[in-house]
């Protein structure tokens, strides 16, 4: 299935500073599989915060659907 992945702000670093990646994942793939595709390990990554689908924070274990647009959001730790 085809997934569009958007990286906004500093997390673009996780996609070679590009905002968008169009990827293909097997049917039944989850948000975690998407993170694995980009070699993002949430608990070890300096930038990664969470995933967004349809304007809602999604859990990594949720199953993706063909045509999903998934946004990768950062942590915003500074001030």
């Amino acid at each position, binding site marked *: 299935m085809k997934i569009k992945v958007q990286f906004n702000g500093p997390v673009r670093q996780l996609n070679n500073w590009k905002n968008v990646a169009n990827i293909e994942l097997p049917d039944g793939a989850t948000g975690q599989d998407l993170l694995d595709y980009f070699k993002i390990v949430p608990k*070890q990554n300096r*930038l990664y915060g969470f995933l967004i689908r349809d304007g809602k924070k999604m859990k990594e274990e949720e199953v993706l659907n063909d045509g999903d647009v998934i946004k990768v959001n950062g942590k915003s730790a500074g001030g």
Partner: protein
Amino acid sequence: MQVGRYHRQEIFYPIGPEGQKKLQEARVCVIGIGALGSSIANNLARAGVGYLRLIDRDIVELTNLQRQVLFTERDAEEMIPKAEAAKMHLSEINSEVEIDPRVVDVNPYNIEKLISDVDLVIDGMDNLETRYLLNEACQKHNVRWVYGGVVGSGGMSMNIFPGEGPCLQCLLGEIPEDGTYDTCDTVGVISPITTIIAAYETAEAMKIIVGSESVSHQLVSLDAWDCYTEFIDVDIDPDCPVCGKHQYNRLEHRQKNYTASLCGHDAYQVTPEDDGSFDYEGVIKALEGEGEVKKSRFFTMFKNDEADFKLFPDGRAIINGVASGDDAQKIFARYIDRQEG
């Protein structure tokens, strides 16, 4: 006709004279008076919020002036603590507001006392550890707070209402295992995003105080460089250890002398347990004769061949030029705690 200083807010229908009265009666705590916090404090003081507790452990530095709107070159030259400099400038802007500056490190010993007697806490912090500590303290004491964070050109903000909605840990999960993540000190930050997020936090604070139905229940994430803005629904995590299980591990993790690395500086901060027994003048007297002692209004600097530190009246010390927290603890024990051997 003479109109009052808050006229423009009072004729704004969602606030009105009733809302203005609520603002003037409100007690608000801003933690972190850096880029976010100085803008927030500026906005709230001008809006006439009656009591502002401004908390920051740091001193104004030249590198702050690019984005921290309250401070001047003179503040940096005179090494004035940010909370004190903010009070000085805000008092000239609005003398009706009670400004309560606290030059302290927020830590497990003092955070509950700092936040439990205010109506609202607003986040101007520069790290996740203190935010997670605040998250636990606010859950425990049922205090509402406004999260706001920035890095690079992006930022986020969300209102956190204990017992009603998701908490910070529901949103971000645990801090990365190695405790490192990017901050403004490591990847930079631009002033437009700090101003935008601070303005957003201030607007939410004002809405919360006046009891507006327009208070946001979503996270806002935006980026000033990428022209990106998104409002995001966040659910309560039923397995959240903080708001779900009421486990306050950070609040309960108290060490005798709490040590923290100061991001972007070759320094560690050591904070002793606050039992009210610290004898600031006595320690300074003991330091004299062991090295160079320079006293300012707000702290004392000490330097010799072995140690280089700033000591604050609350007993906190910033130890410069050390490679680890253990090395900082040793210097603290030798020169401040006076534990020989």
